[in-house]
């Protein structure tokens, strides 16, 4: 059975911490971080490896801050 | 040569085109010309007039208050412009419907039963050509053949069948001046 494995890379300089991505992430991979970027926003961070690369986060992200990868893994 | 003219009458009597024909013809004789209409609502249905200047030299003001010639086609124009004629100037008017004629004695007054003549020729639209013919007889500033050529320019092509009638009217106007 084919399984998908995904990953997200967050551009922390562009992220404004609006948390819309956190709201739509089905695997709770994204969460509010604790650090502040140069613009003063608390940016979002990745908190688990369950990402499926569904792109919900990158689609809703107003600032195009999220790059998404997805790979099919044959088991 | 410098001839400063005002042509005045009701809208629709062809006063504006009279001035234009003079200008077109003037250009054909290499003269300087200027035509300034009264414009706007008063043109429609009310009174209309145009100042027409024909000159051998560059024309300064297109707006003037005193004229070598006044051509008046109705009573209001007679009233309004009688005093605008320069001393010894020409006052030419259609007397058909004028009950109060001009009274100045220091100008040359010519009256024409032009509207009646136009009726006799079965086309009231040629009133202006009768008047123009009369003017050219009094002040031969432009050759008749050039006036006819100018007429061709002013008259839209669909009316060019009326050119002979207009020419007839010009000649009639010339005849009527004594």
């Amino acid at each position, binding site marked *: 059975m084919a399984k998908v494995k995904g990953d997200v890379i967050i551009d922390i300089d562009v992220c404004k911490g609006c948390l819309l991505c956190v709201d739509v992430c089905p695997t709770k991979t994204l969460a509010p971080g604790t650090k502040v970027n140069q613009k003063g926003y608390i940016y979002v961070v990745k908190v688990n490896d369950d990402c499926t690369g569904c792109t919900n986060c990158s689609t809703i992200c107003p600032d195009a801050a999220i790059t998404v990868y997805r790979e099919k893994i044959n088991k | 040569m410098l001839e400063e003219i005002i042509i005045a009458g009701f809208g629709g009597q062809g006063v504006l085109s009279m001035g234009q024909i003079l200008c077109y013809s003037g250009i054909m004789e290499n003269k300087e010309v200027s035509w300034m209409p009264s*414009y706007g609502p008063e043109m429609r249905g009310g009174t209309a007039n145009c100042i027409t200047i024909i000159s051998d030299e560059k024309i300064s003001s*297109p707006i*003037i208050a005193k004229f070598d010639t006044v051509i008046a086609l109705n009573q209001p124009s007679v009233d309004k412009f009688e005093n605008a004629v320069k001393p010894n100037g020409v006052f030419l008017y259609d007397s058909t419907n004028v009950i109060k004629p001009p009274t100045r004695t220091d100008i040359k007054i010519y009256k024409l039963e032009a509207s009646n003549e136009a009726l006799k020729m079965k086309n009231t639209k040629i009133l202006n050509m009768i008047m123009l013919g009369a003017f050219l007889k009094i002040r031969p500033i432009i050759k008749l053949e050039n006036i006819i050529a100018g007429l061709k320019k002013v008259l839209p092509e669909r009316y060019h069948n009326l050119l002979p009638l207009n020419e007839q009217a010009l000649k009639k106007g010339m005849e009527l001046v004594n």
Partner: protein
Amino acid sequence: MGELKLMKGNEAIAEAAIRAGADAYFGYPITPQSEVLEYLANEAEKRTGMVILQAESEVAAINMVYGAGGTGKKVMTTSSSPGISLMQEGLSYIACAEIPCLLVNVVRGGPGLGTIQPGQSDYLQATKGGGHGDYKLLVLAPNSIQEMVDFVKEGFDLAFKYRNPVLILTDGVLGQMMEKVELFDQIPRSKEIPSWATVGKPPNRERNILTSLNLQPELMEKHNEHLQAKYREIEKNEIRVETINCEGADYIFTSFGLTSRICIKAAQLAKEKGIKIGIIRPITVYPFPYETYAKYADKVKGFFDVEMNAGQMLEDVKLGVLGKAPIKFHGRMGGMVPTPDEVFHVFEEKFLGGKE
């Protein structure tokens, strides 16, 4: 010699626009200049493919000029006083974004809805900016139909030379009257695309932005300085003025546009009475020929300024004369046009009769 025609001023503007190779006209009807749009609607598209659009308002028209002018095309609009007032906001933007375009104001008497008869009462609006902010239009004031024709062509050239809006300031008489004009030959519409034009960003250049906004005051000031430097350049290069018989004159009549011709006739009346009158006629009212006035200021007994307004150019005349000679003014307002006799009589009264 070009083609000779008897033309109304408004039609002549339209014909000249077509022949100058204009790409587009956006306008809205208003007396006394509606013939421009009418003439173009009849003639332009079939002859050169020029775009003609009747906008829903003067506000829309000037913004269409902004958009189309921003693509580097030769674009114009025409209107009359109230319509030009509506365009002021757009003009300020156009001047700031440095979009070349040609405007014609066929001035009528104001203020407000005023009259449809001729006026010159938009002089200050035309020459001192008109809209908000520090900007200038280059303003040409023709006094004949021939100049109306020639200035359309020149106006486009100047607009592109300086990337600045050019205004032809004329009036209802010049719009409505007919004169003999010699028309220049058809200039083909240009295919050249200026480097700044917004035409779609090709891969090999930076994107082009046309804007009048800069939220950083330091940069906005820099842009203003650039604009001011341009205006100084225009002042250096583009002053046009006509002088007639000024050498040895007793008095100088001064006037722009239509009234300058009335003054020329009045000067002839003066000559018959043995008074020597010179004429100074600014052809560009911005930039204004101050130095021409300065040149004669201490040589004549006085200046007589005649306008169809309450004395708008008078302020500039005073700046030229700098108190070195008396200046008297005669103005008609609200659509009234002075006659040559009137001008001469008022001159006589004010300078020779001692009655003020």
